[in-house]
């Protein structure tokens, strides 16, 4: 049955990265390359991103029709989500009815409000807002009064939110179903790095005609970096590194010495480490134009060994697995990064045996299946 052969040796990472870095290559992709790319990009949640790019450059009629259909389907979905979140923000501002509350819009919706290049086609379903701790209660009570409800939570979750994270559980208006996350801090409650939100709030920038604020460009990148390398396990997170890359490129072109300012800001706020990694990997994977010596000025750079390990693990975690042939190495890398994200919360006496065991499996991959069954 040789005629039905599909080339499974296509490098799926390369297909995806090339498409992102130089989307013009897409018009030369063969059908079998497209088939794999579509599956990989879907897993990385980047179908909409590719579609938006192709649409903008008028290339949609130069690629196979079946690919166009799937790309357009994703783009339509993404546009609907963006509209829903946008509308949710408008309803929240309506509900707050002119109350003087400083609201900073974060993440996806913030990119959309500023029309940043990464916003087109970007999937996001939630609305993330940053407010002062004092305003939190007021917002919660106003929104509850106007029909927003807390997401269904178990008692445990509720206690966790209130006692540990000092945040309120996500609010949802039942008629619209968009999740609204109201934060009063930028660091994840689980993270070991506590970030003072005050300097971020002071530097926030007002969005014209919207009555809301967004983080300053430097802070937006730092927030992105913290989410990637401090709060997160990095699995399938390429799109967030892409956010970082696109925003960095955009503001670097707009403002002379933007990258200098970014480095200084990171050093002042003690966020050198996550910024270092973000710069390192966006340069490595996405070819961001950042001078190599720039990140040497950062405080809190990782040591040689840490960087070596991260260099080997992070790309395997960020980039999606092959849908048919998941690699054991990538699974291990993801596990290590998962553990890293739990590093300080996990006692060493439990962490070490776990790591040794997993390394053993990576050395003797043949034993992994049996070991897993027993474990």
């Amino acid at each position, binding site marked *: 049955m040789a005629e039905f052969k599909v080339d499974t040796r296509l490098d799926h990472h390369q297909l995806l990265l090339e498409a992102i870095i130089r989307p013009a290559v897409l018009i030369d992709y063969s059908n079998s390359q497209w088939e794999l790319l579509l599956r990989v990009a879907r897993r990385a949640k980047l179908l909409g991103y590719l579609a938006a790019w192709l649409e903008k450059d008028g290339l949609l009629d130069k690629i196979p029709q079946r690919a166009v259909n799937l790309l357009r389907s994703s783009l339509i979905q993404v546009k609907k989500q963006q509209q829903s979140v946008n509308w949710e923000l408008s309803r929240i501002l309506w509900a707050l009815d002119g109350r003087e509350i400083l609201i900073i819009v974060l993440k996806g919706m913030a990119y959309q409000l500023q029309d940043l290049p990464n916003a087109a086609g970007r999937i996001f379903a939630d609305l993330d807002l940053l407010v002062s701790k004092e305003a939190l209660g007021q917002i919660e009570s106003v929104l*509850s*009064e*106007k*029909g927003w*409800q807390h*997401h*269904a939570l178990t*008692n*445990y979750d509720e206690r966790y939110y209130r006692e540990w994270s000092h945040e309120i559980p996500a609010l*949802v208006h*039942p*008629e619209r*179903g968009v999740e609204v996350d109201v934060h009063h801090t930028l660091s994840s409650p689980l993270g070991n790095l506590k970030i003072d939100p005050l300097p971020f709030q002071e530097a926030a920038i007002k969005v014209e005609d919207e009555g809301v604020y967004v983080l300053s460009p430097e802070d937006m990148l730092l927030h992105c970096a913290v989410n990637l390398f401090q709060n997160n396990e990095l699995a399938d997170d390429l799109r967030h590194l892409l956010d970082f890359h696109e925003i960095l490129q955009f503001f670097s072109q707009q403002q002379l010495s933007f990258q200098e300012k970014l480095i200084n800001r990171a050093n002042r706020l003690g966020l050198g480490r996550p910024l270092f990694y973000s710069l390192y990997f966006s340069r490595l994977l996405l070819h961001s134009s950042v001078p190599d010596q720039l990140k040497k000025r950062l405080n809190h750079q990782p040591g040689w060994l840490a960087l070596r390990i991260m260099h080997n693990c992070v790309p395997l975690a960020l980039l999606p697995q092959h849908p048919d042939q998941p690699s054991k190495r990538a699974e291990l890398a993801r596990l290590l990064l998962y553990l890293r994200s739990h590093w300080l919360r996990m006692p060493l006496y439990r962490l070490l045996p776990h790591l040794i065991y997993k390394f053993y499996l990576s050395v003797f991959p043949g034993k992994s299946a049996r070991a897993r069954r027993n474990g």
Partner: protein
Amino acid sequence: MSEKNIPEQLKQDAASKQTTAALLSQPARRRLLKSTVAIPVIMTLHSGAALARTSNLVGAVTDLDSAAKKMNDLEQARIVCVNPGDGPIEESSSTYDLGMNPTAALGDASQDLATQAENCQTGGGILISVTAFQSLQGRGFFSDL
């Protein structure tokens, strides 16, 4: 679904009830639209109903072990009792169309499971399997639980 979860303002806002008119039976909807020109009517269409409905036919289970349960914080088991959104359940059928807005309530933790189940059924509800419950919950039903 407990009454106290509904914000006071919504309960009083009779006009908002009109939004649910899309879910009413057809004759009821026609009455609302046509004959009552004396009041303004607005209904907002809700999406995703079809997708929900394809998975919305569920079988009732009698086996208490496979029925969906929730634990409270004292680790007491409470059964999930489901009531269809529109209209009564047909006795004869082995599956139930839960309609577009089924509700669910938890049994009383102080009672044993069999009593909870009995109370559920006498109140017109059914027990559904854990699997069915999870598939429905993921689609936005039963958000109160």
